[in-house]
């Protein structure tokens, strides 16, 4: 039976746990790619699912996967807003590079450099590349999170890849 429906109608903890097993790793991957440290990603993964439980048990939601990623996105924005307040940084890229991506070793993993370049792209390009390639979301799923049409997402993805090629 439809898991989110069971959470709404019966406050079914077992159904919610199934949703956790299905989505937690994907959500965490997205968060790891957006946050400075794995521990931050673990904390925000837990917060994502706790907030989503409150929402799912009070409202009928047809796409729980989209809800989890929407909540995760908002938590990332809140995270950097708090960072900006406490340390006065301008952008997520600066925080990420300060933490462990930039300058630790001369011979960095190629993927780490690519991720750094992605982080320096404009927000909507960076996000769509990470949602698609890191969290393995299909254009239709990304569309339901971002409010775009699936074709709009495919076109944005095409542009994001082109922008990345230009700076690599």
């Amino acid at each position, binding site marked *: 039976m439809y898991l989110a429906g069971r959470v709404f109608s019966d406050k079914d903890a077992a159904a919610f746990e199934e949703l956790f097993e299905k989505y937690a790793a994907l959500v965490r991957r997205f968060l790891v790619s957006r946050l400075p440290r794995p521990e931050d990603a673990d904390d925000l993964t837990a917060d994502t699912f706790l907030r989503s439980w409150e929402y799912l048990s009070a409202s009928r939601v047809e796409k729980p996967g989209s809800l989890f990623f929407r909540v995760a996105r908002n938590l990332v924005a809140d995270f950097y807003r708090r960072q900006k307040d406490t340390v006065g940084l301008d952008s997520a890229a600066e925080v990420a590079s300060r933490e462990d991506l930039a300058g630790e070793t001369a011979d960095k993993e190629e*993927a780490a450099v690519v991720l750094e370049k992605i982080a320096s792209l404009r927000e909507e390009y960076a996000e769509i590349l990470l949602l698609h390639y890191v969290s393995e979301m299909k254009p239709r799923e990304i569309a339901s999170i971002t409010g775009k049409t699936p*074709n709009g997402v495919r076109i944005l993805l095409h542009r994001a890849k082109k922008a990345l090629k230009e700076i690599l």
Partner: protein
Amino acid sequence: MKNFEQQLKSLKSSKRIGSWDSAARAQVRARVMNVVKVEAARATPVQSLWFVSQFISRPLTIGTAAFVLLTGGWSATVSAAAGSLPGDSFYSVKRITEEAQLRLASLDRRAVLHTEFASRRLDEAEALVAAADTRPEAKALAHQALTDYKDQLARATADVVEINKASDPAAKTLVSSVGNKITELSAALDKTSAVQDQSSADIHEVKEAAASAASAVASAVVDVHESSASDSSERELKAMFSTLLGKVQARQTMNRHRIDVMSAMLGEDPERFKNAAGVPKSADLGSLAVAVANTSSAVDLAMSALTTGGYRAAFDELEKADRALLATEQQIAAYEFSILSAPEIETEAITPKAP
């Protein structure tokens, strides 16, 4: 050497992203589920009680409902069926229950039920599309749910037309409110991801049927207004017009945007699309843009007719614009498919420059 696409795909298994340490994962799961289990234990499942009360209040003379009663677990069964989707084990109970409700209902109650069931079919189609990656049969089931939505909408419309023939004033009031609901359902179809990004003939047929339903009920509601000239029927008419106008204007904006995006894509990568099959030329996109722009004159005529009380003319003009936009949409979807299917020009992996 990996190509660019493979480089991107390998990001998810990179050291930076990595796999989730099992102890850390277990800690996060425990943190979440400890809270969830406590809150779940406190909650009462209200929705299942609603379903029980619905069935206790109705006389059980229908064979299938009696069968469910005899099997002993009827309230739990019906409750379990409530959120089920096509392909789920309880879905047939859900549909049998709906048919039982319809057979017990009077004409006016049936019209209301048909709109409720049309809304459910739309929700089911959305849920199935969302589950398409884990259920191979989901897309086909979603198409069937949309066909059932079309059927329920048609039955609701037929009921409204039938009610309209009655002389009972209370029934006439219902024509307006159910007519409004049908118009909203017709507009809601465009917003669902089950139909966005689809260019199949079946989906187009569902959209055409929704447009026809909206037009038929508009005509019925105008009839009611012309015979009663009441304030409430005028309010309902204006509300319906507003819903349909919003739908047409949203369609115009979306179509224009899609044409602009296609133009931009063709301009950015001309080599890729030069010889690709089915890809439009700029003159083709220009013709589509003109077709969309031309619908504005029908919309202007509709709005002028509304301000002078010419409701029938207003709805007719709006319907003209809607159908023209539907035809344009079909062509846009076909062009988009050709553009997105055009083969990429292979590039070699790019070695990142040193910082």
